[in-house]
């Protein structure tokens, strides 16, 4: 078994309104920053002991499917690295 960290990034699907990101963008603009757009995402770092990287990725993917993301509104991706 090897220690891995799986990083799960969950973001809203393109086209789904993100009021918090819009509010954040407006606040940045009030501070004088110029920007075209801003998107936010949630990042989860999951430490697992797994047989190999594929096993770690499969487990983190199931976590995303079953809880971390809501497939109605979210896309997600999973990256795995040895811890």
């Amino acid at each position, binding site marked *: 078994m090897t220690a891995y960290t799986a990083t799960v990034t969950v973001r809203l699907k393109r086209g789904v309104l993100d009021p*918090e990101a819009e509010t954040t963008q407006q606040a940045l603009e009030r501070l004088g920053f110029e920007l075209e757009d801003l998107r936010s995402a949630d990042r989860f770092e999951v430490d697992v002991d797994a047989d190999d990287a594929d096993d770690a990725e499969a487990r983190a993917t199931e976590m995303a499917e079953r809880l971390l993301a809501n497939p109605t509104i979210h896309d997600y991706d999973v990256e795995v690295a040895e811890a």
Partner: protein
Amino acid sequence: MSVAVIRFGGSNCDRDAVRALEHLGIESEIVWHADGLPADPDGIVIPGGFSYGDYLRAGAMAARTPILDDVRAAADSGTPVLGVCNGAQIGSESGLTPGAFTTNRSARFQCEPVCLRVENADTPWTAAYDEGDVIEIPIAHGEGRFEIDDDRLAALEDDDRVLFRYCDADGEVTDAANPNGSKHGVAGVLGEDDHVAVLMPHPERASLPDIGPTDGQGILRAFE
């Protein structure tokens, strides 16, 4: 036998629901989620509140507690199930009902009376109304914006599974009358069967004559 009102850590409309049902002469009891569902309840209410502090997403944690398996089984066997506000978020997170309720367009918590147009009066939840009726019921949520992809929304509409839409006092569904940016103004939907429903507005807060309008009574009468 009575209506089970499920209490999670952070539920806060459970007693309101019991009081409103009591006013209508409908027996109910609060059930702590970890105790499991009593056998053969007459109905199930998943009440409003902030279960588990809205961690991750509103309703996400409660939707994955074991009692939701009991709720799904009861729903499959015909028990009426109503999710209100946080209960609606739990219902959609658990797959009992379609779509998702997410951050309001305003990015703020909103607590205000709204008008709803009855879209389908041929359900247990709306039998007290006529299609097109306008009823006034309060909302109190920060994550009530109904989201779903266009194809699935069209399918819901074709199947008459939209129960209520936000509207103005004349029953017009307009952007200005939509408090949270919900797609097509959807405020409440049916599950796969019409005895399962969720809505963001609070019928239990519009059921006691002493505190204001009583337009919500008709929804709760589904449990009679």
